[in-house]
């Protein structure tokens, strides 16, 4: 244990006191005093020097033989292995604690039969409770967000967990005393101890930061989409104001005509009636244009509703009709038979269509040939039951094979006044809907075709 041999001892080279490091000498003396007084000394831990100067941890205990004051027995137990294990355990505990702290993950165990709950320190920190206070389901309840409590109760999650003994995961929120919200993600694993008693071991991660940045990212995306939408609207403002001024001018004309028909002698009532009917039609036309614009410039979180893609296409084409006419673009819409409804956000999908249609018109602005734009919606060739394919085909300058994918990169643009965001945002929108957006060169003639797919509403 201390690396000396019998010869070292016999020759007197080993001195008892030299074996003990100086900081342990006091302890030794107390042990000797105890021995003298009571005839026994309780085992205690200390260290000895080895022959090579290194230290060995030991447990030392001893007693005098009864009735003898100078003869007894002592034992020295090498604690090296135990100490190593202890250190390793401490280290791994430290690793675990640090790991829990760094990953904001706490752990707990729940013995279902006894409701005995054990938490890791990090879990106390996540719940902002004093480390070590006894954890009960009632205490946990005071921290869980009221809305999530009612959900948990409605789903009888606790009862199910008691009965089922399956692994499960769930997401929930905490509401702290200062009303701040934490988002937690929990995974629980069911085990049975040797007596067959159910115990859950669970990891709970505080995902608040990730959740908030995700929300912020979503908001940025939606703000950006809004900005480009407003920009597109800005570009079209003159043609849009025309769309509104036309019906307004017509209404004024009919109104003035009606007053004159009324002032005539005799009154020309039939013509008054006709003029009034026309006024109503034109007022409806103007408000349709305005609601179209308002919908496009509206800023709100995307929603998912079942939509007629045909309607959506018609609305967008009506909105850009004037612009296309002034650019001498002939536009045609084709719809497959019995198209399923698609699920999506009306405004976002209108934005995608608006972008593809104006891109198509832009691509043809320098072409001297016929400027034909085709918008077609039909069931997807590959998955006719679950997807609708919408394509916008132009006869413009086309796209080089090498650029077919690059055009979807943000800030990549071939237009002098473009920001290069339209297609990038369109693709993001389509993908968020569960569809795809891609471009193809036309096989039979100049120009390009943009396709996007949308899942059919179930």
């Amino acid at each position, binding site marked *: 244990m201390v690396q000396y041999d019998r010869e070292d001892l016999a020759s007197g080279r080993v001195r008892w006191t030299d074996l003990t490091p100086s900081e342990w000498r006091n302890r030794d003396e107390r042990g000797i005093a105890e021995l003298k007084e009571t005839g026994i000394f309780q085992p205690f831990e200390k260290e000895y020097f080895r022959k090579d100067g290194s230290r060995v941890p030991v447990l030392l205990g001893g007693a005098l033989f009864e009735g003898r004051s100078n003869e007894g027995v002592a034992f020295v137990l090498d604690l090296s292995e135990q100490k190593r294990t202890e250190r390793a355990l401490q280290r791994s505990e430290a690793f675990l604690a640090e790991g829990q702290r760094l990953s904001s993950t706490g752990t707990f165990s729940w013995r279902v039969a006894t409701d005995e709950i054990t938490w890791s320190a990090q879990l106390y920190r996540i719940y902002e409770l004093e480390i070590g206070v006894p954890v009960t389901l009632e205490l946990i309840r005071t921290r869980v967000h009221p809305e999530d409590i009612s959900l948990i109760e409605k789903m009888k999650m606790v009862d199910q967990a008691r009965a089922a003994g399956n692994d499960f995961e769930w997401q929930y929120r905490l509401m702290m005393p200062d009303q701040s919200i934490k988002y937690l993600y929990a995974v629980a694993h069911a085990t049975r101890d040797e007596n067959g008693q159910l115990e859950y071991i669970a990891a709970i991660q505080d995902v608040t930061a990730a959740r908030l940045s995700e929300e912020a990212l979503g908001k940025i995306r939606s703000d950006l989409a809004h900005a480009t939408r407003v920009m597109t609207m800005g570009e079209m403002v003159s043609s849009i104001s025309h769309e509104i*001024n*036309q019906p307004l*001018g017509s*209404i*004024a*004309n*009919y109104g003035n005509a009606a007053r*004159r028909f009324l002032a005539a002698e005799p009154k020309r009532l039939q013509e008054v009636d006709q003029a009034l009917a*026309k006024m109503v039609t034109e007022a409806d036309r103007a408000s349709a244009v305005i609601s179209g614009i308002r919908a496009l410039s509206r800023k709100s979180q995307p929603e998912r509703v079942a939509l007629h893609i045909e309607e959506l296409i018609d609305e967008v084409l009506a909105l850009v009709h004037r612009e296309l006419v*002034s650019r001498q673009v002939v536009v045609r819409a084709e719809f497959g038979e019995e198209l399923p409804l698609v699920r999506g956000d009306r405004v976002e999908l209108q934005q995608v269509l608006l972008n593809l249609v104006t891109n198509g018109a832009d691509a043809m602005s320098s072409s001297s040939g016929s400027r034909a734009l085709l918008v077609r919606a039909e069931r997807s060739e590959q998955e006719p039951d679950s997807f609708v394919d919408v394509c916008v085909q132009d006869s413009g300058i086309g796209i080089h094979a090498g650029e077919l994918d690059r055009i979807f990169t943000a800030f990549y643009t071939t237009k002098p006044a473009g920001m290069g965001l339209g297609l990038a945002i369109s693709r993001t929108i389509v993908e968020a809907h569960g569809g795809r957006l891609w471009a193809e060169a036309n096989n039979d003639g100049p120009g390009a075709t943009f396709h996007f797919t949308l899942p059919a509403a179930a």
Partner: protein
Amino acid sequence: MVDDDAAMRHSTQCLIRSIGLRAETFASAQQFLKYKRPDEPSCLVLDMRMPGLSGLDLQKELAEAGVEIPIIFVTAHGDIPMSVQAMKAGAIEFLTKPYRDQDLVDALHDALKRDEAARTEQTKLRDLRRRFDSLTPREREVMGLVVSGLLNKQIAGELGSTEQTVKFHRGHIMRKMQAVSLADLVRMAASLSIPHR
């Protein structure tokens, strides 16, 4: 009236009917160019911005073809350079939508009055031309010298004729041209752009 917007065409037609006038409408400049105008006072209400041939293009084309018709421009854009160009090319009014109906009514009356006056002028000129055409070559020669302010004696000298003969021609000229005085004849000659010395 030429406007590519159907509602605008119909409503303007309705308004024009309400003031007791008749309107023909055309969806494009090309359509209007094919139309055979009736021989009566008329004017053209023209939308500035149309696909295909624009309002300004049509104005130019009509001028080149020698078609004289007062033009009232209507635009939704209040485009000043365009309106200046149109007015320079002879448009009589430039209305920005939405316009007051009275402005259109006034412009229509004004345009029709102008067209009527121009038509009267045209008729007068055609009449005058017919009268002038009825003169003999000699009489036309004498008329040129008369309106230049030469005395009968001087004209006789010029033509190697007698004063008596010149007087005789002069009487014929005044009667055929239905001129009441020398000043009247001079005005007629000016209208006909007869060369004089």
